[in-house]
């Protein structure tokens, strides 16, 4: 069934429509919730919350955006609510430690090691993934949302703007900053691992 029909049937409260909704959108909603919360259990709770919300509130959906955009928006908001309500902040390293630094002339102040061509199994090993996840968790949630949507889940920039109701420059600015932090965290890890005494990401 097409989107208009699905919406119509959801409004009628049809269970078949609800099942269809789950079939179509469950994985995407879960992945997005997982990326933002960085917690599989919370992501499951958020996913349930989102589908209940959609089912209850479909009467309020006016079709200004697509159904999926609306669902993603609910998912982002529900995930952020969870993250913000956590009492424990997971930030372990100040973000500035991972940002690049420059001389007064604007040149790189630190050694920039190119680890990009290391073998894939080294780049994706458990420790590296742990490091990137820690950095992701330490990001402010506004930066994390954009990075997760673009680089983890592959949303186009325009769609991110629509879902988050942000301008393109705002989205790009957050994305760039988040990427710089994660790059810095990975550089710090790879340089430490290599036994190098490079300054990037040093405490």
């Amino acid at each position, binding site marked *: 069934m097409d989107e208009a029909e699905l919406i119509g049937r959801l409004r009628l409260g049809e*269970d078949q429509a609800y099942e269809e909704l789950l079939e179509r959108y469950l994985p995407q909603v879960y992945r997005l919730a997982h990326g933002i919360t960085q917690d*599989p259990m919370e992501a499951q709770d958020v996913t349930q919350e989102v589908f209940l919300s959609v089912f209850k509130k479909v009467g309020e959906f006016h079709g200004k955006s697509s159904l999926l955009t609306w669902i993603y928006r609910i998912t982002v908001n529900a995930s952020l609510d969870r993250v913000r309500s956590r009492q424990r902040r997971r930030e372990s390293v100040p973000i500035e430690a991972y940002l690049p630094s420059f001389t007064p002339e604007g040149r790189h102040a630190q050694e920039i090691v190119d680890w990009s061509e290391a073998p894939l199994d080294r780049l994706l090993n458990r420790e590296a993934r742990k490091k990137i996840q820690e950095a992701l968790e330490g990001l402010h949630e506004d930066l994390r949302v954009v990075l997760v949507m673009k680089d*983890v889940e592959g949303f186009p920039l325009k769609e991110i703007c629509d879902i988050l109701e942000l301008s393109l420059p705002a989205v790009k600015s957050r994305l*760039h900053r988040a990427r710089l932090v994660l790059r810095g965290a990975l550089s710090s890890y790879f340089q430490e691992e290599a036994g190098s005494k490079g300054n990037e990401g040093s405490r």
Partner: protein
Amino acid sequence: MKDRGERPPGKSCRAIVEVLCDYIEGELPPEEERELDSHMADCPPCLSFLKTYRKTTEICRSLSPEEIPAELKERLKRFLERRQER
């Protein structure tokens, strides 16, 4: 945005890093992209920075969970069944 008239010839490394997001998204105007390419050819630190920046975004792709927990769909379907029982 810096005033073009005051900018010294060629971007600084700091200015290059600032536009890296646009660069890898293919959103820089052609002349700016050429300027960046030219800077990269003469600046090994910036080239390394670009390559590691790009690789970071690729590594992020691997963070997406491969599988959806099997119990999740069941949990949501059970909710549906409970609704039907009412």
